[in-house]
């Protein structure tokens, strides 16, 4: 099992969720984060003082999937989230050793 962590633009999150739902991913966890990358931020002015904003709002999606679905899910995310502009985000994949559904105590694949 794998854990996919995708950092995407906040405006894409709903779309991605919908698309993933269509390919049979029925669970994910979303976090509001701030990202720093190549995309540059902006400058705000307050009473003559400059304030540089380098961290931009991003959304992190965490999705546990079975290894067999990994590619499909990644492709779906990439295709949905890509706008071709800097700041589109990144996907990280890590190994999941165990998944447990708290409600039933089920473990592994069944728990995803």
């Amino acid at each position, binding site marked *: 099992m794998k854990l996919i962590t995708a950092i995407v633009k906040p405006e894409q999150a709903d779309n991605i969720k919908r698309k993933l739902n269509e390919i049979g991913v029925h669970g994910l966890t979303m976090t509001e984060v701030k990202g720093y990358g190549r995309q540059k931020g902006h400058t705000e002015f307050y009473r*003559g003082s400059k304030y540089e904003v380098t961290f931009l709002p991003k959304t992190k999606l965490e999705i546990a999937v079975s290894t067999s679905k990994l590619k499909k899910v990644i492709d779906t995310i990439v295709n949905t989230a890509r706008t071709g502009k800097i700041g589109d985000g990144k996907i990280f994949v890590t190994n999941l050793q165990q998944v447990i559904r708290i409600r039933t105590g089920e473990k592994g694949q069944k728990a995803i």
Partner: protein
Amino acid sequence: MSINFGHTAWILTSTALVLFMTLPGLALFYAGLVRSKNTISVLAQCFLIAALTSIIWVVIGYSLSFSGEGLFIGNLDKFLLKNIKITSLTGEIPELLFVMFQMTFAIITPALIIGAFVERIKFSAVFLFTLLWVIFVYAPVAHWVWGNGWLAKKGVLDFAGGLVVHTTAGVSSLVIAYFLGRRKGFPKIAHPPHSPVLAMIGASMLWVGWFGFNAGSALAANGNAAMAMLVTHCSAATATLTWMCIDWYKNGKPGLIGIITGMVAGLATVTPASGYIGPMGGIILGFLSGFICYWFVAFVKFKLKIDDSLDVFAVHGVGGILGTLLAGILATDTFGGLGIEKSVYDQTVVQFIGVISVALFALIVTIIIVKIIQTTIGLRVNSQQEEFDGLDLGSHGEKSYNL
């Protein structure tokens, strides 16, 4: 003279309006401009100052300001408001009402100074500072200008507090900010106001409340009050647009903080002149205050490098001084004013003397007060950690947002 119920009704209302300017108006204006970790502290400071000044005023402040004929200070005949009957009058309104109305001015003046010391002052120092400042700065100056003291005798024009309120608060802000020292990172690192929304609510309340401040200072519900309200409004509107346009031009975008700062500058500037000038004068003052206060914000911050954190001197001090200096000129017929008795030149000299003497007095006495506090209970919170964590937790043990 006997009581006029219409005038009384308006001054009762004006009193409520001016209290509203401080609580919650000014408190929100300032609280919105600081970081969220210092929100509670600003609100608490404002409440403390309001409560404490009220008691000082009733006990001794009113008497020092408005009792007796002394050139420099009043007497103690009205200590604890004794000798004021329910039937005593000031002009055509009850003297008790005059006490209340003036109290709200005494409250907002030290409250303005909060803007200079936010995010780093000890709460107990605010207590002591207010106590001393109201008695030794505010009361004397109020007496000079409005209590038949030496400046009043000279014929200085200060309708609603360009000298008594804004010059004193502005100059003292510079002093206390100087002695307190800068916040970490100032002026290089800017911190965005944590809530432009709160600041805007506060600013709006200031605008509305200022009608009580300036039009109430007519102590009557008549044409004079109406004109004061009108010119006040004109100045605020013009300064708003002016500041907005400068921001737009310089930063490419007109920000809300600039818009409301301009508005407050316009209000402070028109205050001393508001009972003497016409709409044209109001527009001129608004326009000038937009430009000049704007310039002073940067000057204090980047040239003087004094961390007058919410620009009290640049906005209120400079505004109040500007309006006081120009009151005589704009009161003339040429600018659609209501006319003055002296020649423009003579009047302007008096205005100048007023500004210099009040500014110097506030400067010196505030230095003394600050030194006293520094050598006794201390001015600034004890640890850098407390400043970093914010005064909300450090001084009040509360958090402003628990969503």
